[in-house]
């Protein structure tokens, strides 16, 4: 276990004490990153409530692209297992879904359950990388991007546009599906595009079955959405400055708050890997990072505390993308030090010390 205060090695108690002093002096503290297991997220929301801070997960752009459409008109989604078991038509949107093993797994199997059982599986792509390794029918995206392409496709699907265009052919293939699935990454498609796509899926469900399989962000954003919902009743970007959880995705965007000079202290929580924020070093910051990560060094922030990495050095409840649920993940092996600190433990100690000192909002 390692900790640094102002670049110098320190013991954890001293680092916690310094963190308490830093947060207690702040007017508008923000807790950002939130790439951590569920118990650490819970501890972060509790600390924010005590401190009157706001929270913003690093997965914000992905989470809100999806939540924007969900809050406006609902979404129709399915799971990875249902897609592999039932889908006879799978449309892959954009580049991001091709990165992992998902598309290969979908392409390798045929529908075995439900109304399309025994049929061949048709794999289609729109605006994909066209790498050719997996056999599929590729359609190019419009110059305006995926959102514009989805609007164009939907106009053909609705019968508002007609002709011999490629998208007319694609729309026909989608309507011919018995159980269709669209795979996409919400951040890549964007809020407007996701809403258009969900409209298209509703249109398709007039005559057949069609669903979305959305890729989760890799930074525990889905877990943060659920935890924030059961803790505050709101989506993740909430602030406790006025003693109650206020949800405002614009106001509590941590990058905006810091760029505008509104936030005067930050706590960066990334016990799991997360992209290093550009604002580190621009305001007094505490970093709680995974042991062995590149950020586990004295120069990362004013105060740095390393903790066990959930699913590596310590156990923790994490978002399981394959199952689409929060599930406990065992540690892979013993921690490098005898008694591994957890992020939730460090956050709880900071909160307890703040309460002992009578610092609360």
């Amino acid at each position, binding site marked *: 276990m390692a900790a640094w205060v102002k670049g110098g090695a320190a013991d954890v108690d001293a680092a916690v004490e310094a963190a308490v002093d830093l947060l207690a002096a702040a007017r*508008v503290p923000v807790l950002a990153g939130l790439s951590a297991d569920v118990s650490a997220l819970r501890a972060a929301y509790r600390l924010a409530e005590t*401190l009157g801070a706001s929270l913003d997960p690093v997965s914000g752009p992905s989470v809100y692209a999806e*939540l924007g459409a969900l809050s406006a008109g609902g979404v129709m989604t399915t799971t990875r297992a249902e897609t592999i078991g039932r889908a006879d038509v799978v449309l892959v949107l954009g580049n991001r879904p091709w990165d992992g093993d998902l598309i290969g797994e979908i392409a390798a199997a045929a529908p075995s359950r439900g109304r399309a059982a025994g049929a061949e599986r048709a794999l289609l792509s729109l605006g994909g990388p066209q790498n050719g390794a997996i056999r599929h029918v590729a359609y190019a995206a419009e110059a305006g991007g995926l959102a514009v392409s989805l609007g164009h496709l939907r106009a053909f699907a609705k019968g508002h546009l007609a002709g011999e265009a490629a998208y007319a052919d694609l729309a026909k293939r989608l309507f011919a599906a018995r159980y269709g699935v669209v795979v996409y990454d919400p951040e890549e498609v964007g809020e407007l595009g996701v809403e258009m796509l969900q409209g298209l899926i509703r249109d398709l469900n007039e005559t057949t079955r069609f669903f979305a399989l959305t890729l989760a962000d890799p930074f525990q954003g889905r877990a943060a959405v659920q935890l924030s919902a059961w803790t505050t009743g709101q989506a993740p970007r909430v602030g406790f400055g006025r003693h109650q959880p206020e949800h405002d995705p614009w106001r509590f965007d941590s990058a905006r708050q810091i760029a505008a000079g509104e936030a005067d202290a930050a706590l960066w929580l990334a016990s799991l890997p997360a992209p290093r924020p550009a604002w580190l070093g621009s305001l007094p910051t505490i970093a709680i990072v995974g042991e062995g990560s590149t950020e586990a060094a004295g120069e990362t922030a004013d105060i740095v505390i390393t903790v066990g990495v959930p699913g590596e050095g310590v156990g923790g409840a994490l978002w399981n993308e394959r199952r689409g649920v929060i599930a406990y993940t065992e540690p892979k092996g013993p921690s490098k030090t005898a008694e591994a600190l957890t992020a939730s433990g460090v956050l709880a100690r900071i909160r307890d010390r703040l309460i002992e000192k009578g610092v609360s909002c």
Partner: protein
Amino acid sequence: MSTLRLRGDLPERVDLLNITPLALSGLSEAEAGKLAIGTSRRGLTLGDVFEIRLDGSDSLVIEGGSSRLDRVGAALSEGSIRVEGDAGQRLGEGMAGGALTVTGSAGPYAATGATGGTITIQGDASDHAGGAVYAAKAGLDGATLVIGGKAGDHLGDRMRRGMILAGSAGAFAASRMIAGTILVSGALGDHPGYGMRRGTLIAGSHGALLPTFVETGTPDLVFTRLLAQSLKRLSVPQAGLLGGTLRRYSGDLATLGKGEMFVPA
């Protein structure tokens, strides 16, 4: 005329919901000074931020502005508020009536959900002016929004009724528009009318057009002449758009497709 004079730079965003002439009319200056408007853990009161002079009238002037003044005039139902400077996000949110004027620029979501009255921004408006906030059913909802300068992206997003006048606008103007009228004297950015269901968008020029808007000729419509007459009374530059022949585009065909966009032919 009551006045609130800004004492200096704001250390945090403040929320002026409920700071209206009507709300202040029954209060003494000392009582008004105790109203909480801060948003951080420290908190601020109206008296911390402003020098307060109240005379019980239905007009309020805020001398000095800041991009951290949120929800100015949000609960306005009658009377007037004038900000001599900039305003923050959600200017006139849900406003029901009266007149709200900002001499500088306004932050995002100006006039969101406003059902009545006139909101005038003499400078520029940030993104989502007249647009819907997260999870809201509608953006501008019956009020009139006048932007002297530029509007950002997503002008009139999910707007439901009312009218917006602006000098120019960014990308995705009139996105997801449900109904209403938007007139932009200058240029629109790319992809105006994305997901537009109904409503009218009239502009001097536009950026990249969506493939789901189709040209429907240059009709001579009674509606545009009636609109021109009503705008002449307001003496706004947008009235000039309606003088000549207009080319009409219909869209967004990806959705209901009953929206229309006009540009000078």
